[in-house]
């Protein structure tokens, strides 16, 4: 799985579906949860999006600020589970 491709699909999903602003520029290390942009409602959506888009299950206990606060962290989590 290509890192940039994973990040691009995640970014598109986040700005369109979660932030409701397709033109918004999300940087790779921008804190999304601690920055008040997304919350647990959105993280549940990210979890199901990752299942559908990449066939990877992120357990509920890993949908946390420690593991999913930025685009880079989310990408690491997906790639780490892809093996």
């Amino acid at each position, binding site marked *: 799985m290509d890192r940039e491709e994973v990040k691009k699909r995640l970014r598109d999903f986040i700005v369109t*579906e979660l*932030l*409701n602003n397709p033109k918004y520029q999300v940087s790779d290390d921008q804190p999304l949860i601690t920055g008040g942009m*997304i*919350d*647990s409602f959105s993280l*549940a959506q990210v*979890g199901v999006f990752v299942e559908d888009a990449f066939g990877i299950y992120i357990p*509920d*206990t890993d949908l946390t600020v420690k593991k999913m606060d930025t685009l880079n962290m989310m990408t690491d989590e997906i790639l780490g589970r892809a093996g």
Partner: protein
Amino acid sequence: MPIISWQFGLFVVVVLAVYYLLPRKAQNIWLLTASVGYIATWNTFSVVVLMVTILVNYAAGLRIWQSSRKNPKWLWFGIAVNLAALFFFRIESSGYLEKMIRGILHITDTANAFELRILLPVGFSYYCLQAISYLVDVSHQQCEPEKDLAQFSLYMAYFPRLISGPIERARSFLPVIASNRIVDNEAVSRGFTRIIIGLIRKVVLAGILSGYIAKDLFSAPGNYSSFDLIFQMFLYAFWVYNDFAGYTSIVRGVSDLFGISLSANFDTPYFAHSFTDFWNRWHISLSHWLRDYIFYPFSRFLLRKKINPRSVLYLALPPLITMMVSGLWHNFGAFMLCWGMLHGLFQAAEKLMGRGKPAIKWEDRSLYKRLGTILLVFTGVVFTWVPFASGSLSRVAGYFRAVFTSHAPVQITTLYLIPLYAVAVNIALDWIQYHSKDELVFRRWPIFIQSALLAAALLAILVSFLGSQSALTNFVYQGF
């Protein structure tokens, strides 16, 4: 043995003195012995319940690991046993069972009444949730089952967190128990700072505030003016916060002295910018447990069923159910269900109002909007404390009726300045922690300021402790 007592202080000193002399394996056995001894100081019934719970969950964990993931019968068995016990103790300690049996047997003579009620075993509702999360995580292969019975027992019974949490996860706590602990100057400094902050919150701030909240606020609200009723609820909000945050800070500090870090339970909750944010700052170990084991599974279930994430169903049902469970976990009363529903509805309402609107970074909002949002959320939270504090729905109704109809004279006096000072100190303390994003920021201040603060803190704690000792021994959340 209450946490705020000289006996507990002496107990910790003795346990620590022996602990430091022992190798790691013996340290665990010693901590377990001390934990069982500690719970025995409350009552032996609690020891028996704890032992049985440990054995059942230890065996269930091993069974779950051995059985196929496709046949999680042992997981459901373990969850069912824990929930059934929690349900029974909740019903029983609330007095419902006694009432029911009295009704069935037509016993109306209270003079010859028999006593059926037993207390909720100490800490049960907290370590019961730890057990459930352990079983689920083992089933999902998030962690391996603990084969060492002593280590598993310590995970469940560790005395600093036994009475009222924090609720720890096996995944992070078991490795700490299994590894060598380092108690260096840094850990000791961290521990004592937490203990001092905890004592300031519990003994000084909560101690002062509790003296200004009328005992009959809910039983005779008509005695108070609308202003007094509302003002005292604001005081209650700061009291309950300092009471529980104080307890957590003390036990985390004590645990630091053993080289074992406990999870944070509070993060300046009254600076929350939404109700969802509030629950990431208040009783964090419980709210994250509820999020991981109820909110997420239910939300993801709805999404997998292709429920529109912007629909009322998706935005309202998961928070409502999660918060109602939270309410019932606190107490099996309609008033706590009402408290949970209010929090669930507030979360749903803010999501529904923001539906489809572009998200804006918190820092990009104007100062007025940020302050206004924080005040609005805080006021909403104070509103929800009414059912939490009242003890029954009829009292909630009586309180709000009095707020709108009371003709009692306003009792405001200069005496109200004292709790307001306590509130101001609370806000200042929280602001410093919030602004620095470090609850122990004081340790980075110049040494002469630290010394002055420490002297003032110790004096305030001593004066408060001597002045109102009887009101300080129990914690609100101890009752849950």
